[in-house]
């Protein structure tokens, strides 16, 4: 299983687009991280309010359910760029050159097709909740304090759409690699062997231990 990969860059259009999209993806991922942090703060406020001031936070559960899509989906493309979605690379890890790029191109193309369909499906799910004529443009709302549900539902196809852009870039990257047969293609996550994956994992927690 590889969770860590390295991505090469140069000054071609593909690499520029790759890095530009990555900036946007990093921003989205950070928003997801901040949402986790807010969840923690929200719980502290809710517990403190209930136990110390006898004043529970109204709609606490509603807000969690609004935050979950933010946490769960907006970073999906960031994770794909970094090769962070787990997979089994015991077979592809042994492939080299064009055969490897052909396998990667094939699976990435299939994933792109799946995700395009899911953008459609998730958007349909959003449309069932969205109605310009209704109050808050919303046909359904959360149980406790009546937050409209469509913004959270809209996040899903949007996040999946960004992932589709990323997948298109990766299809492009693997396609180029397949044609040129290069061992070091740009803009796609390269398979790290277990040793370098472990080194990267170790690096994420290095230098934090003080005193």
């Amino acid at each position, binding site marked *: 299983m590889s969770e860590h990969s390295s991505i090469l860059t140069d000054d071609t259009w593909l690499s520029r687009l790759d890095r530009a999209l990555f900036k946007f993806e990093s921003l989205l991922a950070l928003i997801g991280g901040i949402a986790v942090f807010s969840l923690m703060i929200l719980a502290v406020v809710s517990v403190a309010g209930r136990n110390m001031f006898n004043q529970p936070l109204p709609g606490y559960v509603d807000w969690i359910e609004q935050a979950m899509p933010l946490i769960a989906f907006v970073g999906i493309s960031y994770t794909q760029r970094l090769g962070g979605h787990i997979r089994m690379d015991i077979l*592809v890890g042994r492939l080299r050159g064009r055969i490897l790029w052909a396998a990667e191109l094939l699976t990435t193309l299939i994933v792109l097709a799946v995700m395009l369909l899911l953008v459609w499906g998730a958007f349909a799910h959003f449309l069932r909740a969205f109605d310009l004529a209704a109050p808050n443009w919303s046909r359904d709302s959360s149980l406790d304090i009546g937050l409209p549900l469509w913004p959270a539902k809209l996040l899903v196809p949007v996040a999946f759409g960004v992932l589709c852009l990323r997948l298109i870039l990766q299809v492009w990257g693997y396609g180029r690699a397949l044609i040129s047969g290069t061992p070091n293609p740009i803009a796609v996550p390269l398979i790290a062997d277990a*040793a370098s994956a472990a080194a990267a994992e170790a690096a994420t927690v290095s230098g934090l231990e003080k005193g």
Partner: protein
Amino acid sequence: MDSIDIGLIVSGIMLTMVFLGMRVAFAAALAGLLGLVWIFWSKKGYDPDEFIWALGVATKTAGQVPHSKIANQALSLIPTFILIGYLAYYAGLTKALFEAAKRWLGWLPGGLAVSTVFATAGFAAVSGASVATSAVFARIAIPEMLAEGYDKRFAAGVVAAAGTLASLIPPSAILVIYAIIVEQDVGRLLLAGFIPGAFSAVIYGLLVVGLALTFKNFGPPVGGFSWKQRFQSLPGALPILFVVAIIIFFIYNPFGGDAWGTPTEGGALGAFVVFLMALYRGMRWKQLREALLETAKLTVMIFTIIWGVLIYVRFLGFADLPGVFSDWITTLDQSPMLTLIYILLAYAVLGMFMDAIGMLLLTLPVVYPAVIALNGGEFVSAADSAFGMSGTACAIWFGILVVKMAELCLITPPIGLNCFVVAGVRPDITVQDVFKGVAPFFIADALTIAGLIAFPAIVLYLPGLLLGIS
């Protein structure tokens, strides 16, 4: 072609894609989507004019899964636990724990190794991630052990094996995932992981003492700490106890009355305490940003697999593959216990090649109903069951067993990640050394699993005592 055949073919395609290197989450979503299209289209007799209709219905069925399944407050425990884990590295807890463990347990044969096991178990109480735990303790504990003349492979093996304790001792992200997939109460499972986690740590500790007594110069004790020094070492490790206590109080109130809140709130409060400590220890925006990005990445990875697999599960419901598998497994002409042991052995083999989370999520939708059926069904009473426990108790017990099996895959060759991490931190120790050093711990794990199977009370005592599950 009936729906069972479709189920088998589509599952086969999914496994092929996983084998070809497709990300597990997307392979599961692909299988679910493909299967739904196929099932709907077959109902229309594969009429070419109806294909677009089938595609549309399937896509819309699948498309509502991500939002509707993820917008669930019980799931918010996962990111909170992951955040605690990342913040804990900045809170300076690991060194304090190791120091305290050394002063209290160092006098034992193999004292530093025993200390490593228990310090790791303690750290597991704030961290749910095995691999990172091994990386940190490789840096702290191995140099001290080598300085005392410990065997190099032994020292590395202890750290790699002890890291696996994190997946049972709460807060454990993998137990939350199990609870979500099998639709059991998260609090019960977290509570149930406590004693088996401690039990594993004790077995590891005994093994270390045994090895140190058997082999000369393997792991000498370190002595000479006064009681004053021992007590002085405790305050640094106290926040761990505090976090554990908070999480427990939010699941169950030992003073009677209601629990203080939900496990989610408990986890968040624990994270907040660790966050304050990390701030105090000098964490600033740069480190926090790093921790938040890592949290976001790991969280998204886990949630993507969850919704991907749930799309597959939605399809499985139509194909009734789990039902057929359960029927088959319950009519096998052998004892249910033997069947269960085969299932666990299959996980051990699978775990040699697959990541723990991917392995559990891909298999549980089919395997879990079969195990419950083996026991006599979801609503069976303890008296009528095959394993001597109610359906709910069986769900908890099996959860702890499979998570323990999943831990094993972190230290089994050829891809046991914990071993690679320890070798990566210590350039003087090769991966082969770590795999050799970790081998005795397989015996300890086999004993632990045998113990958990022979005495389910180790798992079920705490949930039974506190929540009244038999």
